[in-house]
């Protein structure tokens, strides 16, 4: 039997009749719209699906996708990466992190560069692996460089919970967790001020699903109610995304403005209450967290509560950590891209000086970044 390539298999399945059926429904409904609508997908997982399956091509002309800031790697400002770099270079430190973080350039280089200079930088699949690393290296300090939105925050909280309960003496945390609703508000407010190249605004949101599994759909309540923006929480499969978009378009046609959940199989209104409790035990909001390209977003970041300062690498190593804010390469327009005000090909060095092998900005580094998705799937719209 001919072995099936996994990729083709997915493509066949996901590019199937259901997607086309949804495309038809969306087109029919969209014909009744009075004006074009711009839908922002906040999450990088959605951007990836949208680009990979060429969903923009399936949309009628009056439905436009705007890519949001939803990738923890893309939004990490350089000064935080510099923190990680400096920590990694300290004697007897093992720096541990998740995902593509290791490749993002800071002002001295990336964590990968730190590693080639002899630093012990490790990439783990689950934060709990830190426990094992700490046990095997009793004479080293393991610093967990924690990244991610509400989805991964509870895992960091579980790790800290265990560190405390098991009295592990050598694990510290550098917290870079950020929260989604605050940045969505910021995007609405700032885009109402800025006039972008399309002179458009965000009309509706496709809500991130894994965030909502933890925090519940309730975190988006304010958007339809106070901002007049519908939110539909959707799953990651192309069929999920198409259904989510169809639900948004229906709301506009029927002149409704609501919070709806497409991804009912896992997202509830309340979310995972135990995880929420864990997060509240260990984390406080920081009044300002600087997002790469977006600047300071009020109440959008988390830090360890004062009571746990002994576990906070930012406190323990405060004398060596740089404090200056660092701007991006002047040609890089990641800021506008993360705000949904420009698309990657509008960057003058997209695909030339900046590509996945030699990234200038993090939107190209992270495989979830919009630039990387455009580069990889060649959707140069």
């Amino acid at each position, binding site marked *: 039997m001919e072995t*099936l390539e996994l990729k083709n298999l997915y493509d066949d399945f996901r590019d199937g009749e259901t997607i086309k059926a949804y495309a038809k429904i969306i087109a029919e409904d969209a014909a009744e719209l009075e004006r074009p609508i711009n839908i922002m997908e906040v999450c990088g997982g959605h951007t990836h699906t949208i680009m990979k399956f060429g969903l923009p091509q399936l949309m009628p002309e009056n439905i436009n996708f705007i890519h949001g800031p*939803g990738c*923890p790697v893309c939004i990490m400002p350089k000064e935080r990466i510099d923190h990680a770099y400096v920590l990694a270079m300290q004697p007897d430190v093992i720096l541990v992190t998740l995902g593509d973080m290791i490749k993002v350039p800071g002002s001295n280089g990336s964590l990968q560069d730190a590693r080639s200079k002899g630093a012990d930088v490790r990439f783990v699949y689950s934060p*709990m692996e830190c426990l094992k690393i700490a046990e095997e290296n009793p004479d080293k300090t393991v610093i967990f460089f924690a990244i991610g939105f509400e989805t991964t925050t509870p895992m960091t909280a579980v790790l800290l919970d265990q560190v405390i309960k098991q009295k592990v003496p050598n694990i510290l945390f550098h917290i870079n967790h950020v929260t*989604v609703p605050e940045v969505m508000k910021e995007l609405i407010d700032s885009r109402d001020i800025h006039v972008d190249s399309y002179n458009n605004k965000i009309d509706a949101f496709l809500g991130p699903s894994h965030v909502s599994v*933890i925090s519940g759909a309730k975190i988006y309540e304010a958007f339809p109610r106070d901002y007049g923006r519908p939110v539909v929480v959707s799953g990651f499969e192309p069929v999920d995304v198409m259904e989510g978009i169809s639900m948004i378009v229906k709301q506009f046609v029927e002149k409704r403005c609501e919070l709806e959940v497409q991804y009912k199989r896992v997202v509830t209104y309340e979310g*995972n209450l135990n995880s929420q409790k864990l997060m509240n035990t260990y984390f406080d909001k920081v009044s300002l967290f600087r997002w790469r390209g977006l600047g300071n977003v009020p109440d959008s970041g988390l830090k360890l509560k004062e009571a746990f300062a002994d576990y906070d690498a930012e406190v323990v190593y405060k004398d060596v950590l740089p404090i200056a804010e660092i701007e991006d390469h002047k040609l890089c327009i990641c800021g506008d891209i993360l705000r949904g005000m420009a698309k990657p090909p509008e960057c003058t060095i997209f695909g030339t000086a900046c590509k996945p092998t030699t990234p200038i900005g993090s939107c190209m580094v*992270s*495989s979830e970044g919009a630039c990387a998705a455009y580069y990889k799937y060649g959707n140069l719209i």
Partner: protein
Amino acid sequence: MCLSIPSKVVRISEDKTMCTVDTMGVQRDANLMMMDDDDVKVGDYVLLHIGFVMNKIDEEEALASIDTYKEILELMDEEQRRQTILDDDNCAERGSI
């Protein structure tokens, strides 16, 4: 790519911190510490993310989506199937929203 295939809980450790789940025939361990003590029972369907059980999945919905995934997975050979299921949770980009 993340299929978010529902996994069925087949065993729970005595201290309720870990469980063994079966994802369409492939078994692995997952951390239960994000859930309340009696939230998850043997036989429940759950969603995993970076080695943790994130939440329960509604059984009816779980079975419906498993049917869809089955169609894909049945077309693969043994090794491919195992890898796909493991990859579903091992995605390097996890940590994303």
